[in-house]
C-alpha cells in the first residue's frame, strides 16, 4: 500500500504501522518502504513517517541517511514552523554519522530570528549531547548564546539543556540571572520548574545564608554583648583589627543585608505558589525552604497544604517533603494541623505519611488533640495503619515528657485489644517507653508478664521476656514463674523468642540463682540441642559465662555487669530526619538515595562572591553621539533595575495600559508641568511595547529604554534649565544656540534637541524640531507573513499637517517578493471610540525589490489603544495594528517660568 499513488492508501498503511509501534510490535522490516515516503506531500502521511523514522532510525542507520536531505531542505524553509519541525526530527534521529550535520543545524537555528526555532534548537542540544558527548564544548557555546535570549519561549528549554549538558558551569548564569528572574512568571510551567530548581542551586553558591544571624544569636553568649556595649572605642579598634577575620564573625556585628538579587529571586517566585501545576508549587516551596529567611518560609505552607487535595500520587510526594520540612520548621505547619487528619478512605501509604507529619507536629500544646485523634485511628480496620499509629504514639510519648504517662496508660489499655497485631505492636512500643523509667512501672511489667499466656506474636513475646529479664529486680516473684512457663514451651517457640528465653534465664540466674538455677540448666540443655546454630551458640556461650566452673576465666566475674548493665533508652526518631541534605522535591530526596545526575545542593558560601558579575553591561547605543555622561548612565541603570522589579508580570502591562494610562497622558498634554509624571508613564509604555516584541534584539530594547530615560531627563530638565538660564543671563535675549555651552554635561544628542529651544513666550513651532536621529522603527508586517511585502513604521515626530491632533506615522513599504505589488491601500479600520485615522494615499505600484514610503495620521485620542486595520494589496489582505508608546503621543511645549507656575497652580 505504501507504494501506491494514492495518499489515502498510504495514510491507511502508515496508521497501521504506527499502531503496531504503539503496541510494541516490531515494524522494522518495513523501513525501506516507509523511508521512501519521507518527501511525501501529504502532511498527514509525512507526520506519521516522521514518527516511524524517529523510532527505527537507530536500528537502520544506513537507510535512515536517505531521509536526511529532506530535513536539510526543511531547515531552509521560510516557514518557521517547518524549520522547527525539521530540526526536531533531524535531531531525534539517533545516528552518529550525522552529528556534524546536527551540530551545524543547531548552530544555525540558535541564531534564527524565530523564537520558536530557537526553542527547538535548545531542545536539540541535549539530544546531540547524549548522542556524542564530545561535542560538549561546542554545545556550551550554543547554550551560552541561547541563555542570553530574551524570550520566554526559549528560557525554559535552554535551562533544561544547561542542566543536562553543563550543570557545573554556573558562571554562565551570572549575566542572565536577573533576566531569568524577571521572565520567570511568563515562562511555560514546565520550564518554570527547571529554572527554579537551577536558580536554587545558583543562589546557594552566590548569596549568604539569610539565617546566619539567627544561628549566631543562638550561639552567641550574653558576655560578648556587654563587652562590646561597655566600650565602643575599643569595639571600633577591634573591628579594625579583625577586619580580615572570617565572615561569620563580621556578620555578627554587621547586620545581615540581603543581596538585592537574592530578594529579587524570592519576590519573583512567590506568585508562582499560586500555580495550578503541583510541580511548580513544589519547586517554589523548596526554593523558599532552602533560600528564604526563616521568617518568610511560612508562606509556602498554605500552598503545600492545598496540594493535599490533589491526586494521591501528588499527595504522596508532597507529604514526604512536608514530613522533612516539619522536622526543621515545625511552626510552619502547625496552623494546618487539621489538614493532616486522616480519612478512612485514604490509601495506606498516604495514611502512614500523614501520621508521620502529625507526629512531627506534636508539641506540648497540641498533643492532647493529636492523641485524641490517634485514638480514633486505632479503631481503624486497616491493621498496618493501626500498627503505625501505635508507633506514632510511642514517639509522641518519648518526645513530650508530659504525656508519657497518659500514652503509656493508653497503650496498656490496648494490651487487652482483641487484635493480636495491635497488642504485639503495643508491647513493642511499651517496652521502648519503659526503658526510659522502669522504676515506676513495675505493675505494667507484671501485667505484661501475664500476657505471655495469650500473645502469640513472636516479636511481642520476645519483647516481654526481655523486659522481665531486664527488670527482674522489680518483679522478683513473677520472673521465675514466667521462666518456668517458658521452659515448658521452649521447644515450640520461634527462634527470636528462644534467644530471649535464654537471656532471661541467664539474667535470673545471676540475680536469683537460688530459685532458678535448675530452670536455667534445663533451658540451656534444651538449647544445646536446638536446630538453630545461633541458639546453640548462644547457649554454649552463656553457660560458660555464668555457670562457674573451675576453668572459667576472668570473664565470669563480670557476668553480672555484662548482662545487667544499664542500657541507654532507645531514641525514637523520624525516618525523615536529616533528609533535607537532599534538595527537597527531588527524586533523590524521595528515595533518600542519590539518583543518577543529581546535583548536590551546595552549602552557603562563607563570604558572598562578587555580586557585580550579575550586572549586565549597558550597551551604549550606537546611535547616541558621543559618550553618555557618567551620572546619567548610573542613574539610568538604577532606574532600570527598579522598574524591572516593579513589573514582573509582563503580560499585565498590555491589558492594563490602555484605560489607566490614557487619563494620565491626557493631563500631560494639558499641562506641561506634570511632565515628570508623564515621562514615567512613557517609560512603562515603552516597556509594554517591548513585551510585545519579544523577538526584538537586545540592543534595540536597551536603546529604547535608554532613550526614554534620556527623554525623561530632558523633560525633567527643561523647566529647570530655563529658570537657571534666566537667572544667569537675565538681560540677554538668549537665542537657543547660546545655550549649548552650559549644557556640556548633557549628551550631544540632547544638545541637538535643545537647539530647537527658544525662551520666547510663543510656543515653539513644532516644525523646527529636527527629527531625532534616534527614531525607532517598528515592524508592521514581517517579510514572511506578508509574503514578501514588509512594512516598517516609525513615529516621525513631525506635525501631521492635515490635522494637528494626529500623530504622524511614517511607513516604509519594501517589496521583497519576486513579483510586483499593486494597489497598496488601507481598509476596514477598527478603532476605539474617539480615535481617528487619516489614511495614506494608495500606492499604485510597488515593483519587486523596491521601497516606497507614505505617511498616515492617527489620532490616538491620548490613549495607547492600538489602531487596527487591514493592509490590502491587489491580491491579499493583512491584519495589522499600530500601538503607540506613550512617549510618542506627546508634543513638546515651551513655557516661561511664569506660565509654568500658572499652569502648576491650576492643575
Amino acid at each position, binding site marked *: 500500500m505504501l507504494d501506491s499513488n494514492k495518499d489515502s492508501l498510504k495514510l491507511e498503511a502508515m496508521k497501521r504501522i504506527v499502531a503496531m509501534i504503539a503496541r510494541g510490535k516490531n515494524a522494522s522490516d518495513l523501513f525501506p518502504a516507509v523511508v521512501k515516503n519521507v518527501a511525501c506531500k501529504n502532511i498527514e502521511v509525512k507526520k506519521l513517517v516522521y514518527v516511524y523514522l524517529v523510532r527505527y532510525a537507530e536500528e537502520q542507520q544506513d537507510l535512515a541517511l536517505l531521509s536526511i536531505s529532506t530535513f536539510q531542505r526543511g531547515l531552509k524553509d521560510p516557514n518557521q514552523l517547518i524549520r522547527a519541525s525539521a530540526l526536531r526530527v533531524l535531531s531525534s534521529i539517533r545516528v552518529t554519522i550525522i552529528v556534524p550535520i546536527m551540530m551545524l543545524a543547531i548552530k544555525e537555528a540558535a541564531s534564527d530570528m524565530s523564537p520558536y526555532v530557537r526553542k527547538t534548537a535548545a531542545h536539540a542540544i541535549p539530544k546531540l549531547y547524549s548522542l556524542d558527548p564530545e561535542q560538549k564544548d561546542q554545545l556550551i557555546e550554543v547554550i551560552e548564546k541561547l541563555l542570553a535570549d530574551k524570550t520566554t519561549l526559549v528560557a525554559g528549554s535552554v535551562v533544561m539543556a544547561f542542566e543536562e549538558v553543563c550543570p557545573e558551569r554556573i558562571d554562565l548564569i551570572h549575566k542572565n540571572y536577573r533576566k531569568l528572574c524577571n521572565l520567570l512568571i511568563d515562562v511555560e510551567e514546565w520550564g518554570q520548574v527547571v529554572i527554579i530548581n537551577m536558580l536554587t542551586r545558583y543562589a546557594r553558591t552566590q548569596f549568604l545564608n539569610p539565617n546566619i544571624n539567627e544561628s549566631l544569636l543562638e550561639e552567641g553568649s550574653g558576655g560578648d554583648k556587654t563587652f562590646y556595649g561597655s566600650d565602643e572605642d575599643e569595639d571600633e579598634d577591634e573591628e579594625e583589627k579583625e577586619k580580615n577575620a572570617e565572615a561569620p564573625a563580621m556578620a555578627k556585628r554587621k547586620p545581615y543585608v540581603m543581596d538585592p538579587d537574592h530578594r529579587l529571586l524570592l519576590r519573583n517566585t512567590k506568585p508562582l505558589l499560586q500555580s495550578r501545576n503541583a510541580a511548580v508549587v513544589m*519547586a517554589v516551596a523548596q526554593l523558599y525552604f532552602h533560600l528564604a529567611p526563616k521568617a518568610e518560609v511560612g508562606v509556602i505552607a498554605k500552598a503545600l497544604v492545598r496540594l493535599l487535595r490533589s491526586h494521591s500520587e501528588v499527595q504522596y510526594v508532597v507529604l514526604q517533603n512536608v514530613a522533612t520540612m516539619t522536622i526543621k520548621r515545625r511552626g510552619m505547619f502547625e496552623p494546618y494541623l487539621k489538614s493532616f487528619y486522616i480519612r478512612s478512605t485514604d490509601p495506606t501509604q498516604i495514611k502512614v505519611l500523614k501520621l508521620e507529619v502529625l507526629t512531627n507536629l506534636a508539641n506540648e500544646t497540641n498533643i492532647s488533640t493529636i492523641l485524641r485523634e490517634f485514638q480514633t485511628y486505632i479503631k481503624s480496620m486497616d491493621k498496618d495503619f493501626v500498627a503505625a499509629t501505635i508507633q506514632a504514639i510511642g514517639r509522641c510519648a518519648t518526645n513530650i515528657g508530659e504525656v508519657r504517662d497518659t500514652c503509656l496508660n493508653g497503650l496498656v489499655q490496648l494490651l487487652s485489644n*482483641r487484635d493480636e497485631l495491635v497488642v504485639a505492636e503495643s508491647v513493642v512500643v511499651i517496652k521502648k517507653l519503659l526503658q526510659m523509667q522502669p522504676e515506676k512501672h513495675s505493675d505494667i511489667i507484671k501485667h505484661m508478664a501475664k500476657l505471655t499466656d495469650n500473645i502469640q506474636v513472636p516479636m511481642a513475646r520476645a519483647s516481654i521476656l526481655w523486659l522481665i529479664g531486664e527488670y527482674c529486680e522489680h518483679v522478683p516473684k513473677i520472673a521465675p514463674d514466667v521462666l518456668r512457663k517458658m521452659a515448658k514451651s521452649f521447644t515450640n517457640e520461634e527462634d527470636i523468642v528462644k534467644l530471649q528465653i535464654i537471656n532471661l534465664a541467664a539474667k535470673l540466674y545471676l540475680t536469683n540463682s537460688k530459685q532458678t538455677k535448675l530452670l536455667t540448666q534445663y533451658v540451656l540443655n534444651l538449647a544445646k540441642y536446638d536446630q538453630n546454630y545461633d541458639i546453640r551458640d548462644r547457649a554454649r556461650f552463656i553457660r560458660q559465662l555464668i555457670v562457674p566452673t573451675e576453668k572459667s576465666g576472668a570473664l565470669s566475674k563480670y557476668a553480672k555487669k555484662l548482662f545487667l548493665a544499664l542500657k541507654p533508652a532507645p531514641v525514637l526518631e523520624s525516618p525523615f530526619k536529616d533528609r533535607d541534605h537532599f534538595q527537597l522535591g527531588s527524586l533523590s530526596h524521595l528515595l533518600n538515595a542519590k539518583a543518577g545526575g543529581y546535583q548536590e545542593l551546595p552549602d552557603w558560601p562563607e563570604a558572598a562572591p562578587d555580586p557585580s558579575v550579575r550586572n549586565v553591561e549597558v550597551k551604549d547605543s550606537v546611535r547616541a553621539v558621543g559618550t553618555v555622561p557618567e551620572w546619567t548612565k548610573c542613574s539610568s541603570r538604577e532606574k532600570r533595575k527598579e522598574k524591572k522589579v516593579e513589573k514582573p508580570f509582563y503580560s499585565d502591562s498590555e491589558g492594563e495600559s490602555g484605560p489607566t494610562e490614557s487619563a494620565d497622558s491626557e493631563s500631560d498634554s494639558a499641562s506641561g508641568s506634570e511632565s515628570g509624571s508623564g515621562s514615567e508613564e512613557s517609560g512603562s509604555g515603552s516597556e509594554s511595547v517591548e513585551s510585545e516584541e519579544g523577538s526584538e534584539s537586545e540592543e534595540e530594547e536597551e536603546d529604547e529604554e535608554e532613550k526614554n530615560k534620556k527623554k525623561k531627563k530632558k523633560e525633567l530638565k527643561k523647566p529647570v534649565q530655563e529658570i537657571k538660564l534666566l537667572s544667569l543671563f537675565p538681560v540677554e535675549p538668549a537665542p537657543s544656540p547660546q545655550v549649548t555651552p552650559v549644557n556640556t554635561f548633557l549628551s550631544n544628542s540632547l544638545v541637538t534637541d535643545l537647539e530647537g529651544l527658544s525662551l520666547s513666550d510663543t510656543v515653539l513651532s513644532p516644525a523646527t524640531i529636527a527629527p531625532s536621529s534616534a527614531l525607532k522603527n517598528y515592524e508592521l508586517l514581517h517579510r514572511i507573513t506578508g509574503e514578501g511585502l514588509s512594512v516598517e513604521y516609525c513615529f516621525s515626530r513631525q506635525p501631521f499637517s492635515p490635522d494637528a491632533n494626529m500623530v504622524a506615522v511614517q511607513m516604509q513599504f519594501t517589496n521583497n517578493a519576486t513579483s510586483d505589488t499593486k494597489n497598496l491601500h488601507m481598509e476596514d479600520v477598527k478603532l476605539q471610540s474617539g480615535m481617528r485615522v487619516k489614511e495614506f494615499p494608495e500606492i499604485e505600484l510597488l515593483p519587486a525589490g523596491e521601497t516606497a514610503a507614505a505617511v498616515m495620521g492617527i489620532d490616538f485620542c491620548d490613549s495607547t489603544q492600538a489602531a487596527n486595520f487591514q493592509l490590502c494589496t491587489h491580491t491579499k489582505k493583512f491584519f495589522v495594528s499600530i500601538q503607540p508608546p506613550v512617549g510618542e503621543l506627546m508634543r513638546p511645549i515651551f513655557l516661561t517660568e511664569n506660565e509654568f507656575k500658572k499652569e502648576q497652580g491650576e492643575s
Partner: protein
Amino acid sequence: MIHSLFLINHSGDIFLEKHWKSVISRSVCDYFFEAREKAVDPENVPPVLQTPHHYLISIYRGKLFFLSVIQTEVAPLFVIEFLHRVADTIQDYFGECSEGIIKDNIVTVYELLEEMLDNGFPLATESNVLKEMIRPPTILRSVVNTLTGSSNVGDTLPTGQLSNVPWRRAGVKYTNNEAYFDVIEEIDAILDKSGTTVFAEIQGVIEACVRLTGMPDLTLSFMNPRLLDDVSFHPCVRFKRWESERVLSFIPPDGNFTLMNYHVSSQNLVAIPVYVKQSISFFETGPCGRLDITIGPKQTMGKTVENMMVTIHMPKAVLNANLTATQGTYTYDLTTKVLVWDIGKLNPQKLPNLRGSLSTQVGVPKPEDNPSLNIDLKIQQLAISGLKVSRLDMYGEKYKPFKGVKYLTKAGKFQVRT
C-alpha cells in the same frame, strides 16, 4: 527527563508504549508488577520505584497505570503532574480515559504523546495548542473520514505556540458568544460520633466554558473576595491584578477549562448542611448487629439537598444486611462489603431512615471497629461559603456576550466517624 511511557491495564497487560529517547525493553515493568503484587490495592502501589538502572514513576487513573521510566534525577512531581496531564488530555479528546477508548484511538493517542514531549521534556501540553495540531474526533468527522479517507491530523501548524497567549488559539469565531462559569464548592469534613465537627473546610473550583469570538479580555469580580483564603489559577489569570484589586483578569482559553481553585479556610465557620444520627452496633452474643441511621437537614440556607447517598465500608465479618429504608434504596455488595444507601432528595418533613439488622459470620469475634459513613450530597444554586460573583466585564471585543454563573455545592470528602 521522561524516557518512556507504558500504559498498563488492570490485569497487568502493557497495551501501549512510547519511547522518547532510545527504546527501553518492556522487561523494566517487571519491577513494577512485583510492587503491584505486594500492594493489595492498586492505590497502594508506591508512585516512585527504584530499580537497578531506572526509576519508575507511575500514576493510577481510571483503572489504568501510566508508568514512566526515568533515568536521571528529575523532580518526581514534574513527572506525576505530566502523567496526569496526559490522562486529562486523553479524557478531553475522547470523553473518557479508559483502555477501550485508548485502544480504539491508538494512533491519535500516539501522535498526541509525540507532540506533548520532545526528548522527554514537555513541549505542548495546552489542549488548545494540541487540538490545533491533532483534531479531536467527533461523530461527524469520523463519518467524513471514513468516506474521504482523511485523518484527524490538522494540516495547519501550531501557531498557538508562537503567540503570547499560548493557551488560546487564534481566529476563534462563534455565532453565539457565550461565557458560563460554574462555581462548585466541595465540603470536606470529618464529624465525630456525636456529630460535632472535627475538621471542616471548603474547596472550591470555578469551571468555565467560554465560547467567545476573537481575543476577549475578561474581568470577573466577586462580591466578597476576602473569603478566599488560598487560590491557584489557570496560567491565563493575571496575578498582579488579583494581588492589587482582587479581581480575575484574563484572556480565556477557548472551550472548557478550570479557571481557578480556591480554598476557604477552616478558620471560618463552615456550615454543615446535614446532620446524621447513627448507631451501628454488633452484639457480643449471636452473629448479628444492628444499624440505624437517620439523616436530616441542618444548615441548608433554604435550599433542597439532592442526590443524598451514604456509603459504608463494612467490616469483613459482616455477611449480609437486612434493612428497611423509609426512603430510597439500599444495596449491599457481598464481595466488597460496601453498603450503599441511595436516598435522593432530602425531605425535611419526613426524615429518611435506614434501620435493620446485620448478620455476621458465625464463630468470628464481633468486629470491634465501627465503620465510618461517607456522605454524598448536592445542593443546587448555592455556594456554601457564600461566595458570589458580582460581575463579568469584557474588553477588547465589541459584541455583547451571553453570560451565566451557576453555583453548586457538593460533599467532598465528607465523613462521619462512628
